[in-house]
């Protein structure tokens, strides 16, 4: 059943909030009063409740089933975290209250930092970045600031593997770098020869942006060598931490030569994704970069904590401020709660289970689907579309057919280095029972595809709240907001 838009339910004169009558004091708005109707519909509280409850049921969610989006780490979101995040000392504190009145909040940030630095074996972390891409920006700006401080401002070339997330090249460009792409080797990793070549006799390399495990779900075996090469060439190593869930508690980025890495609290440490955010991207920094960290940050002040909010002093080398206030407190509370709940033992176990689950899927589907690269994977399994050859079914069709099986599809057509990619990340939150059902469904879909049922794949999904949506039409003639329909009376004449 279609749900109307609020604009078709409410009216500007109705309201779902009771407020006392204003007393009618003299205005101090200086003649800038807003006149006329804004056009915002109001709904009574029961109408509002029903509207959004109905809408919500049109969503798939991790609480409903496996959400195997590769690179997205859709894991269980504990409700304890939601409860903690709503404690008044975290949720109902103003960012600019007197420092003496926010010691608990600062202490939480300090504790979070300790966990993140320890898990990464890195000497510093910048908490402010508001998402993964913002963390990338943070790391790359720190690199740029360091280069500038060292009189190396000619270093503006950043190496990025072709398998990288789109945010990597976009971030590099947003920081004023140019992007130089490194091809992948036959085993889905950085082509070391190509890398060496790009570093040879150059003094313009600022660094490399590398995801590890990479977006093919593979650990970059040569990572230590890569780090050494980059450092020897005068550049810095930015690690995209999107896939940190494969490493936590077993491998520390600081032991690999990483100079900066953002951590997606909303992936690895389970702050809920909320249909697209908010996220949080704290960025760990090496000794080489830590003095350039953005404002503000927490420092000890005797037995109290304080915030460094202005340049100079403790922040003499800071590259500046990335946003208002101190970052995503709401995510810090959830992430710290998550980490303390797991403890070092649980975090390690979660990592192992995530890797085990991915390999179990890969091994269980290897005979009917085509595994992109040989060998075991880390926390996600990458397939290409060779197994669909001559079936008339493509990756998109296959994904949409998964919806009819009751699943959210995997990531499709990414990474770009394999054809018709299908990247499956189950996370540690799935039980063996769920995985077995998922594997069974996938196998039966493959069977159906190979049995010549392409047409039914093209029709999929049919059991979803909507059939396939026309994305081309949406882009060609963008309708980005509701507008009132032309008056019916007029139309009728």
């Amino acid at each position, binding site marked *: 059943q279609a749900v109307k*838009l609020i604009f078709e339910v*409410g*009216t500007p004169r109705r*309201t*779902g*909030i009771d407020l006392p009558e204003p007393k009618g004091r*003299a*205005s101090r*708005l200086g003649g800038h009063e*807003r006149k006329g109707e804004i056009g*915002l*519909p*109001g709904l009574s509280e029961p109408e509002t409740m029903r509207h*959004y409850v109905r*809408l919500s049921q049109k*969503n798939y*969610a991790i*609480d409903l089933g496996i959400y195997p989006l590769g690179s997205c780490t859709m894991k269980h*979101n504990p409700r304890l975290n939601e409860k903690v995040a709503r404690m008044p000392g975290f949720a*109902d504190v103003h960012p600019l209250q*007197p420092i003496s009145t926010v010691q608990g909040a600062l202490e*939480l940030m300090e504790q979070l930092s300790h966990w993140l630095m320890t898990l990464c074996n890195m000497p510093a972390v910048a908490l402010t970045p*508001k*998402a993964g891409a913002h963390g990338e*920006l943070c790391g790359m700006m720190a690199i740029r600031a360091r280069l500038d401080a060292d009189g190396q401002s000619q270093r503006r070339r950043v190496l990025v593997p072709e398998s990288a997330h*789109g*945010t990597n090249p*976009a971030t590099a*460009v947003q920081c*004023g770098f140019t992007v130089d792409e490194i091809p992948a080797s036959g085993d889905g990793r950085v082509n070391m020869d190509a890398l060496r070549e790009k570093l040879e006799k150059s003094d313009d390399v600022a660094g490399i942006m590398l995801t590890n495990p990479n977006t093919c779900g593979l650990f*970059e075996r040569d990572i230590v060598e890569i780090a050494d090469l980059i450092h020897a060439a005068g550049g810095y190593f930015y690690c995209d931490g999107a896939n940190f869930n494969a490493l936590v*508690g077993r491998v*520390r980025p600081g*032991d690999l030569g990483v100079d900066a890495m953002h951590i997606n609290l*909303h992936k690895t440490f389970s702050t809920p*994704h909320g*249909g*697209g955010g*908010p996220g*949080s991207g704290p960025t760990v920094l090496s000794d080489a970069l830590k003095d350039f960290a953005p404002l503000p940050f927490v420092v000890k002040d005797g037995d109290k904590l304080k915030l460094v909010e202005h340049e100079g002093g403790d922040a003499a080398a800071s590259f*500046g401020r990335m946003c208002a206030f101190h970052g995503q*407190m*709401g995510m810090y509370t959830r992430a710290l709660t998550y980490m303390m709940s797991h403890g070092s*033992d649980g975090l390690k*176990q979660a990592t192992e289970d995530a*890797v085990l689950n991915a390999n179990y899927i890969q091994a*269980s589907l290897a005979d009917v689907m085509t595994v992109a690269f040989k060998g075991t994977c880390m926390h996600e399994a990458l397939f290409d579309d060779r197994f669909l050859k001559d079936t008339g079914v493509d990756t998109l069709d296959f994904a949409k057919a998964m919806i009819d099986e009751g699943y959210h599809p995997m990531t499709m057509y990414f990474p770009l280095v394999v054809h018709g990619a299908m990247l499956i990340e189950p996370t*540690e*939150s799935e*039980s*063996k029972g769920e995985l077995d059902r998922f594997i069974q469904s996938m196998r039966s879909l493959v069977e159906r595809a190979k049995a010549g049922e392409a047409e039914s794949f093209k029709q999929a999904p049919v059991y979803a709240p*909507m059939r*396939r949506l026309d*994305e081309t039409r949406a*882009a060609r003639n*963008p*309708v*980005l*907001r*509701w507008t009132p329909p032309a008056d019916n009376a007029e139309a009728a004449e």
Partner: protein
Amino acid sequence: MRYLPLNENDRKAMLDVIGADSIDDLFQDVPEKARLKALVDLPKHQSEQAIERHMAKLSAKSVSAGSVPFFCGAGAYKHHIPATVDHLIQRSEFLTAYTPYQPEISQGTLQSLFEFQTQVALLTGMDVANASMYDGSTACAEAVVMAKRVTRKSRAILAPGLHPHYAAATQTLASTLDIQIDERDCRPGRDDHVIDHINDDTACVVVQSPNVFGEIIDLAPIAEKAHKHKALLIAVFTEPVALGAIKSPGEQGADIVVGEGQGLGVGLNFGGPHVGLFACTKKLVRQMPGRLCGETVDANGERGFVLTLSTREQHIRREKATSNICTNSGLCCLAFTIHMSLLGDAGLKRLAALNHEAACHLADVIDGIDGADVVNETFFNEFTVKLNKPATEVVEALAEKGVLGGVPVSRLTEGNEDLLLVCATETASEEDIHAFETALKEVLS
């Protein structure tokens, strides 16, 4: 471990299927020297009860806004949020969904984003709005970058009354992008001067209204001058409730409007997460950063919604994207939209009126105190007070008396030690204001 469904039997059986002897086999690609031999030096797992206690203790070490008379603003506002809002955003289907890349099973998120975009467009008086940014400050920075793309000019003028954090975030992003930022002198009463600085080199002029000092700025003449020089007016606001009372930037000729949406639906959260609003004129839409949700139809011809115009975005365009932004502030958009749906036109206007009245009352009270003078000619729910003592000392002294009495300007930008930003929303009761008055008199005397 309560979050991990696998047990040892499962693990064993799964390793058998994989053909691995142990879990270590799966980590064989990790260089020997980087393999951790023991657990990291952090505590082991704890019960829910133990963690709740730990966190409750930490929480109790801060003074929450709701527990005292409270008058802080400066970019983050305390409003009463209906219980319905928090209930709905906690529904599993909203809370634990990913970005709606598969529209057939994401209409809940998508339709609410379409509603959000429309509400933001209406509120700002603009043609279109995106599906949110991280917060107001990053939205502001992105708007300046966008203005460079649109105008192919690189000089940006930031008005003196722009929130210093917004200016700083903009400068940080712009510094690496070869965008020049005109110098500012962050003091009250200087925003109108920006008009004199606009010339043919100007890509954009960024003006906040109400500005950080609370003063309401007439944007129309600035827009006119900017347009004359083919520059864009970027209008900024930090308090969405203000737009229920004052003219929209759109009516005054703004080309891009960015602002902070936290005031509706989203709590203070010690500064984050908040929700950045970003709106512009129709002709600029393809230069916009961030996600956009658009209307379309499905295979049956039914109305539905999808993410669209993604050729602007990093996951498609990579280094040619309009921004590197990926994650937005989805759940906060939803909170904003639900709160706004409950309010509607009538509710928003009344809420704004109550805010303004509370602030007018507070301003009268403060003007009556020796050693404190309200600087503003105009304001909405926040204004600047000149004190006879350093503002940071005053707020600490007030805090000791159990009042959170505002934000010293020097917290935002160095200098201006005698200026205090004071805000009163609908949550400030008569008794709260009276408590503030009493405490402030004592502190200033």
